[in-house]
Every structure is written in C-alpha cells, then in structure tokens.
C-alpha cells in the first residue's frame, strides 16, 4: 500500500472529490480506508446542505432587471475619463492608495471621490419608487429614519465611508433626486458647503455621525439641512 491511513484522511479533508486514480484506488483498498471514505462522504453531504442556503426568488430577477435599466458600455468611456481625471486630482492631493481601498485626508476628499465612484450610477438606479429596505440597512447602525425623510427615499445601499461602513441614499425632492451619504462614525463641521465638478454638497452633523447631502449646483441642498439633521434618529425614538 503506497500511503497510510492518516495521509489518506488528510487528502479526504483537502479534496474529498478528487478523481486522482491513486486516491480512488486506495479508497477501496482496505476496510479502514473504506470507512474513512464513507465518514467523509457523510460529512460532505451535510456540508453541501449547510452551505446551500436558500436563495430568495427575486435575487436573480432583480439583478437582471438592474442591468437592463442601467446604462452599459455606451457611457463607459465617459465614466473612465471621469475616473482618470479624478485620479490625477487625488494623486496631486497626496492621497494614499492601498490595495483596492482609498484612504482620505479629509471628509471633503472622501465625498468627492465617493460621488465620482458611483454617485451617478446609483442615481440612475433609483427608480423613484419608495425603498423598502431602509430599516434593513440602517438597523445595523442603530439608527432609523423619521417617516418624513423615509418616505422620500427611493434607494438605499451600503457604502464605505472614511470610518467604516455607512449608507448611500437617494431621496426624491421637488428639485429632483438628491444623494445623501450617511457616515455613522465620522464627525464633520456642520453646515460646511463643498463644491466639485458642478456638484455641491453640504455636510450635516447628526446625533450619531454625520451626513453629506449632494446635489447639482442648481439644487439647493442646504434646504435639506434641517430635515436631514432631524431625521436620523435612534431606533427607540417615537418619531
């Protein structure tokens, strides 16, 4: 016999479905090998069932629909050109790149970069309907939205922020859709206005963390300051 039992068990634990002829031959070579192979097969069946968590029926349909309604290759070059332009700005500003992540020297740089990264795409994905996953996304941050602002949200998703994960929202306003980035662990100078590439943003201090309200230069994002500041509330609040 060319290999011992412990060696065989190790291979079972590494690649139980191996079709290596020598492995297959050894499997049936002696009772203890057969027993080990049967034990492994039983465990693998259980493992396969454990990882095969049910997939919600709408997941596939949703992603196909999203792709169908999202601009594809036609605008890609514009997207790349914008990203390339931003890269130059970022390089000049001395921001440190590490792996796929970007570190920022300031909240202002983060807001501009993040909006460049996918701000327009996310706006395009918001279909104007009310989002039904607001609680699902915000509950992890121990915060909820007051009904007034919640009723205006047409899309909410997770996003990176300067200090961990946050949320990216699109809200419907009389002047068109506006982006709000919720940064649960980032402090900002409340009321500070930013401008970049025809966009404007206002930073809003919240009870917990902060937000950036981003719109075009023709949208008066400052008008939303009070609404935003008063709408990110703790889950225990009555509102």
């Amino acid at each position, binding site marked *: 016999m060319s290999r011992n039992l412990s060696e065989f068990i190790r291979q079972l634990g590494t*690649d139980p479905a191996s079709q290596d002829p020598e492995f297959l031959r050894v499997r049936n070579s002696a009772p203890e090998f057969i027993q080990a192979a049967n*034990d492994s097969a039983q465990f693998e069946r259980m493992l396969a*069932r454990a990882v095969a968590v049910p997939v919600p029926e709408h*997941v596939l349909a949703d*992603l196909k629909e999203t792709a169908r309604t999202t601009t594809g290759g036609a605008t890609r070059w514009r997207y790349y050109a914008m990203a390339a332009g931003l890269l130059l700005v970022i390089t000049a500003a001395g921001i440190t790149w590490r792996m796929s992540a970007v570190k920022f020297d300031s909240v202002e740089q983060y807001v501009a970069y993040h909006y460049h990264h996918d701000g327009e795409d996310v706006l395009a994905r918001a279909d104007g309907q009310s989002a039904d996953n607001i609680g699902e996304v915000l509950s992890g941050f121990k915060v909820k939205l007051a009904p007034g602002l919640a009723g205006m949200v047409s899309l909410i998703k997770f*996003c990176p922020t300067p200090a961990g994960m946050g949320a990216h929202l699109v809200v419907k306003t009389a002047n068109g859709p506006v982006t709000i980035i919720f940064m649960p662990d980032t402090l900002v100078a409340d009321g500070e206005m930013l401008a970049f590439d025809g966009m404007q943003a206002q930073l809003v201090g919240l009870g917990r963390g902060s937000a950036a309200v981003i719109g075009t230069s023709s949208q008066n994002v400052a008008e939303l300051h009070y609404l935003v500041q008063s709408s990110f509330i703790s889950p225990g609040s009555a509102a």
Partner: protein
Amino acid sequence: MSSEAWRQERFNALANAYGTDLYRYALWMCANDALAKDLVQETWLRAWKALDRLNSDAAGKSWLITILRREFARTFERKVPKFADVNTIEVREDSQSEPDDRVEIQLLRRNIQKLPPRYREPLLLQVVMGYSCDEIAQQLAISKSAVMTQLFRAREQLIQRLQQDGVTGNV
C-alpha cells in the same frame, strides 16, 4: 441580434449560471442578508459595465468572484458594524429534512461562520463555487499547499466543533 441584445443575453447566461452561488458565497462572507444582496448587486452591476472585457465565458466564474471579493474589500475596508451575532443567523430550512438533520445543519452553519476567514473562504470557494485547489490558490493568490492546509484545517475544525456540540454519527 443587436450587440445590446447579445450583451443582455450573455449577461443573463452568466446570471443564470452563477447568480445563486454568488449570492450564497456573498451571504457566507457577510453573514447578513441585506449586505449580501447589496454586494451581489454591486458585483453584477460592475460585471454588466465591464462585460465586454470578459474574453471568454469560461472565465466568467472566476471573473465574477474577483469582482465580488474586490467589492467586499471596498465595503469592508475598515471596521464593520456588528449586524448579527453568528448564533442568531437563521436561514430557512429544507422542509424535507428530518428534525435531527436540521439541528446538525444549523450547528454546522454556525460553526462555518465561526471559522477564521482564512479557513472559511477557501472552503466556501470549494464547496459553494466548485473551485479546485489550483483555482482557489489562483483566486486567493496563495500557494496550492497553503490552500490544501487551510481546507484540511477548516474541515478538521468543523468536525471537532460538531463533536463538541454533541453531534455523534460518523462525522
């Protein structure tokens, strides 16, 4: 067929082939359904945008996993809020399972969540995505021998924990 229709058809074929496995993989990575859906949607959106750069459909699976892992790294760049204790993660059960099976499966799911990421990820690539050891090594940019060690230790830990949980039988 117009190029846009062909593009859509190609995308749908990828979604049909890998959509559910990618969601499962994301769910095991995130341990949160909302996060997993978000991650999967981001992955597919980036895939849709970059579809013309996928030279061969045979490379689709590893291409999608690469996008998903990159998005995961971007989203989880720093600290992640604690959405759920692994012990509270519940998934719908297969109604055909025997009650004893269900307990064992549930225990196994919790123990998979408790595996260190360096053990969990190769195991998920193998069991959920059907990767070979060579493919896992390539995807994770580590040696094949390291992959084999991690896969063995992952299973070893799962079996030990099941035995500690009182699951008998031949595991």
